[in-house]
């Protein structure tokens, strides 16, 4: 994977809804988590519906972040539903 790429991973109900566990995107033009969400929501109707309607958390490099978090090259970004362990 080139360094200008971001790895994005999805879990649980979100992974099944999108039928996607992992993808790579180029960081060019992207600055925050909000930017990534907008980009992903534009993929197709299913992605748009999912990102607009499902409550989602986001983690960058395994730490929870909010929408304004600034991303950088090589980051691993995860989207997932509220957690239900224990």
């Amino acid at each position, binding site marked *: 994977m080139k360094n200008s790429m971001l790895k994005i991973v999805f*879990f*649980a109900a979100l992974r*099944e809804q999108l039928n996607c566990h992992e993808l790579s995107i180029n960081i060019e033009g992207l600055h925050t988590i909000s930017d990534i969400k907008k980009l992903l929501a534009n993929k197709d109707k299913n992605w748009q519906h999912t990102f607009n309607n499902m409550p989602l958390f986001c*983690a960058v490099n*395994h730490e929870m972040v909010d929408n304004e978090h600034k991303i950088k090259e090589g980051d691993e970004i995860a989207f997932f539903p*509220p957690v*239900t*362990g*224990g």
Partner: protein
Amino acid sequence: MIKNNTAEISIQTEDFNLTDEVALLEHNNSTDGAIVTFTGRVRNMNDGKNISSLTLEHYPIMTEKSLAKIIATAKTRWNIGRVKIIHRVGKLSIGEQIVFVGVTSQHRHSAFAANEFIMDHLKVEAPFWKKENYLNGEQWLSAKESDKQKAKKWF
């Protein structure tokens, strides 16, 4: 025999043995007079639906980081000795053990409080997800507002 496993956090598919875990918390530990353990198991029912099994998914590395942070916070709040968290992942049948939290301390109050604190925070912070499997179908569990409130009460 005492297993040589002193890691505080274990995410595993295999079952655990309560007696072994308590023995590890006690081994060479003459300062702590209290041991509080919690075990979570798979219930046969939830929200009026009969469950046949659970499937647990997690986000490796983040899970361990998140639990380590919860343990570190508990250690700053209470004077506790040893901590052990075990959380199973994969497919679990009714009655199977899901999660174990063990805490030792000199006196009982800290161990009780820290154990509950760890469980309350694990529920809302650690990236685990449960899917309920029924005879006819399956469904991912939704997060509960009551769990959020329980975690908040500590602040």
